[in-house]
């Protein structure tokens, strides 16, 4: 019943001519197939993620044992860790590159790049992206950006070190710190390539979704994943160019002597000639992207979690329309809240008040989403696949991290919490852990669509429970450090007597982080092993409704061997009363499900309603008029 349009064997042969001669190079390297590009994004993203995680372990070791010497560090890092102790400037570089890689390379490109590419054509019923060539370019620009970003570790003065927000003048004046030398130049170049990559991707996603949906797939029949990818791409297209502008001006200030961000600086025994610029300008430009960026990171994860939770609870997502409108609300509001990063940076305090109002409004759509997820679980028939576990984990992190956003969005409270560990705890939970969990849920869930095999379930359980526990053990205590006024990006807590009491907590956090990192080996092993030896998947292993599960396991170029299937219903008809199975695929017409149709399903089509009413009379079915309010 799930294969109406595609069970046509002659079509398979007919389509054979589409298989051009593929060499290794065109199939695996310079591929223009959206599924291969998705895999390229995913694997590059995972590699970058592992690197960024190792960086975090390095600086966590420094925080836990500020007085110890680790000869291994000197072997591995050379001049960056003389005598086995991290250099303070290199510590800042580690923090900076960890943040940059995680936010941009893993959670933007790795997440959106992977799942937008994989799922948009598959779930809306398209053969490929609107512009496959641009899609390929997008990946290769991203790859180049990644290589440049990592190459900064081989620069004499070290990688960029001004924090991932690279506030000038620290980032603009090479004399200010070693990390503002050539490493920073490469950082800026890498970011420009990265932004070009995400713009190409974003334009592709939007045009594919708006123009290439299959017959019957109107906007209100799209799965929430597609809605979230669409809105994420729009956010990216509108906000990333602003960062490019900011970055270009910073390059001018650094290399050509302009004064956009610099004024009245005396450094290294010398007064610089720059006058009239404002460091605050950078902050406005940066956060105009930077805040939407956190929604670019979390929204795809939300879409994935919604889909995964609906499939595995065997229930329709609760309040589909409210979910879409809350996504739209978040998208719109995210453009007018950037100032909440700048309450105490010297921005006009009145503006701070305004930004506080817009910021706290954004909690309303977020609350709606959370409650709707909870309602989706309520009275479900939950299958705890690893993907489902991670989706539930996302909800938990989103709540815990989101609630502290109410503190930080309040300008008065932010005075004391700004730039402390409280902020670190907040964003690592709400956009770090939550988004990573969304990404991992997606990997477990759509692995069969990428590699035709299933991942090991039990290793998935182990992976989830260790990671879930470790994430809370790492980030929960940080709230209290922040409430004690411990600033972030401190190389050591040894210089202030008041911070002594947190030294033991730091050791605990570091070991929890190591546990979390080791747990990822279960995932990496599972991932690589399953690609080659995993259990073979069936066409629709999760019994889901969406279109991608009507494609053959072989994952052919062009996605469907015959005609692209037509869509007749929304993607969330799970456990519909009156139907014999607990899912009805989007490709199943209502004429085949007379026993479960609701009058509401016909969207005001009176002829269809009459047929249904007649059928109901004939079959003594009385409950179809029962409408869910």
């Amino acid at each position, binding site marked *: 019943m799930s294969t109406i349009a595609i069970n046509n064997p002659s079509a398979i042969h007919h389509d054979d001519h589409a298989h051009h001669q593929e060499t290794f190079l065109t199939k695996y390297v310079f591929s223009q197939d959206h599924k291969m590009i998705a895999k390229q994004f995913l694997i590059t993203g995972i590699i970058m993620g592992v690197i960024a995680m190792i960086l975090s372990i390095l600086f966590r070791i420094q925080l836990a044992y500020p007085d110890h010497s680790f000869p291994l560090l000197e072997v591995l890092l050379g001049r960056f860790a003389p005598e086995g102790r991290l250099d303070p400037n290199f510590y800042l570089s580690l923090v900076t590159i960890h943040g940059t890689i995680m936010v941009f390379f893993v959670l933007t490109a790795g997440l959106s790049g992977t799942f937008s590419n994989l799922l948009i054509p598959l779930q809306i019923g398209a053969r490929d992206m609107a512009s496959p060539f641009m899609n390929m370019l997008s990946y290769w620009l991203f790859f180049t950006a990644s290589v440049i970003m990592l190459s900064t570790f081989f620069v004499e003065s070290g990688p960029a070190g001004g924090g991932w927000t690279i506030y000038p003048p620290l980032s603009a004046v090479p004399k200010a710190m070693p990390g503002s030398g050539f490493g920073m130049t490469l950082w800026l170049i890498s970011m420009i390539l990265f932004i070009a990559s995400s713009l190409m991707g974003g334009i592709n996603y939007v045009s594919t979704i708006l123009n290439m949906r299959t017959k019957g797939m109107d906007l209100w029949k799209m799965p929430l994943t597609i809605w979230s990818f669409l809105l994420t791409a729009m956010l990216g297209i509108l906000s990333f160019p602003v960062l490019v502008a900011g970055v270009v001006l910073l390059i001018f200030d650094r290399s050509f002597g302009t004064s956009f961000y610099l004024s009245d600086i005396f450094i290294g025994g010398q007064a610089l000639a720059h006058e009239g610029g404002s460091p605050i300008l950078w902050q406005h430009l940066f956060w105009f992207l930077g805040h939407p960026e956190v929604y670019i990171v979390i929204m795809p994860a939300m879409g994935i979690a919604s889909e995964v939770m609906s499939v595995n609870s065997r229930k329709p997502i609760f309040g589909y329309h409210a979910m879409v409108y809350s996504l739209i609300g978040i998208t719109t509001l995210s453009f007018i809240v950037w100032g909440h990063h700048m309450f105490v940076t010297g921005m006009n305090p009145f503006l701070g008040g305004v930004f506080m109002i817009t910021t706290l409004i954004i909690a309303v759509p977020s609350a*709606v989403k959370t*409650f709707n997820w909870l309602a989706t679980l309520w009275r479900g*028939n939950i299958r705890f696949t690893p993907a489902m576990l991670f989706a539930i984990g996302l909800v938990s992190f989103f709540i815990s991290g989101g609630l502290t956003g109410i503190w930080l969005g309040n300008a008065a409270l932010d005075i004391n919490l700004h730039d402390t560990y409280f902020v670190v705890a907040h964003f690592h939970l709400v956009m770090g852990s939550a988004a990573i969990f969304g990404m991992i849920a997606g990997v477990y869930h759509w692995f069969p669509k990428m590699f035709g095999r299933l991942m090991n379930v039990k290793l998935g359980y182990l992976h989830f429970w260790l990671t879930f526990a470790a994430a809370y053990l790492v980030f929960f205590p940080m709230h209290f450090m922040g409430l004690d006024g411990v600033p972030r990006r401190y190389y050591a807590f040894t210089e202030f007597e008041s911070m002594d009491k947190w030294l033991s907590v730091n050791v605990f956090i570091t070991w929890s982080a190591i546990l979390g990192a080791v747990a990822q080996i279960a995932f990496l092993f599972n991932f690589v092993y399953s690609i080659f030896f995993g259990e073979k998947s069936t066409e629709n292993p999760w019994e889901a409704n969406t279109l991608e599960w009507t494609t053959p396991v072989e994952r052919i170029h062009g996605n469907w061997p015959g005609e692209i299937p037509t869509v007749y219903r929304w993607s969330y008809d799970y456990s519909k009363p009156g139907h014999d199975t607990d899912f009805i695929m989007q490709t199943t017409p209502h004429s085949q499900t007379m026993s479960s149709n609701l009058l509401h399903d016909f969207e005001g089509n009176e002829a269809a309603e009459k047929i249904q009413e007649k059928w109901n009379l004939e079959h003594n079915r009385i409950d179809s008029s029962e409408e869910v309010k």
Partner: protein
Amino acid sequence: MNIKRFFNLKSLFAIGALLSLTFSQVMAQDAVATATETVSKHEGLGKTVGYYILLFLLVCIFIGIIGKILSVYDLTRKIQGRRNGIKWDKINGILFGITLIVGMYGVYWSYSVQGAQILPAAGSEHGAKIDSMFSITMILTTIVLVLTHIALFSFAYLYNSSKKRKAYYYPHNNTLEKYWTVIPAIVLTILVLMGFFTWRGITNIPEKEMKAAIQIDVTAHQFAWDVRYAGKDNVNGRKNYKLIGGLGGLNNLGLDLSDKANFDDLKVTEIVLPVNKSVRFTLSSQDVIHSFYMPHFRVQMNCVPGMSTYFQFTPTKTTQEMRQDTDNPKFDYNLLCAKICGGSHYNMQFKVRVVSNREYQEWIKQQKLIVTDDMKKAYQLAMKDSATESNNKIALNN
């Protein structure tokens, strides 16, 4: 038992792959170790690293064995046709139930043990207002945190999969959705209004009160603070970054001596504030952005090169009182830097004391003028030189 053999082969292969992987890692580590053997201080490092890798390998094998036992157990049950193997859905559901209980206890423990280590009650007037907002926000968010997690984890515990049951088809309920849109909106409106007025109260200070406050000027630079008090006229003199290092290297703040207000300014090595008197800090930076952060007063404001920022507040507790309140005889107020500013960002501190008004008056009398006699002499010399050229810009050009 075909199936069984297939499983065993597969697992053997898995362990083999793991072994070879880790073995090659060990080898690589050995190579590293041999390369550095010339450096005697790294002797034995390879062994240590190898030890941890072996330890990790053992854990992996242990987990692999447990996994194997579980799948054998699972299979035998299936073969005996008793039940459908291990009910993983149920186990995960129970784990969520346990997580709920352990998590709740963990939150309670964190709040009571680590919560006891956070900042003491604010030592300033506006800080008390912030603290009360803090309490309200904390109570509200904790309630939401606990309730939503009870829902989340207990749903996971209660509704795990069963073949006998079908999930409840419940696509939407507009009344419910209205409730959980409107209620958060109302709560947030209240929080926003409170926050807005508290924030305006802190940042929007009438001109008259600004002038009446004790004026203190703070200049941040890598990695120290320079603080000067305004002296008798309660006005801090002008500065110009181009003058820094002038007057024979003595003018490290770039004081513009053509402004007479500079001559009574005082240079201090610690910030001493009289209790219950309003103070107004004027903040600036010479090089990169720093952040003037005094957590005990709930005070933070960035120091930005090229512009001045301000923070005005009234301390309400002397250091002595704070020591009694916190039961910590070593307690001291602190000024630290909260904005990343370079290698020694983590150690940019300045001492702060709050004392009675009488003590303050005594202390301020002992403070030295910031414009020393040497500086005055150098300035007069420079002025004489420039007078001959009828161009007093020389002070600016050094």
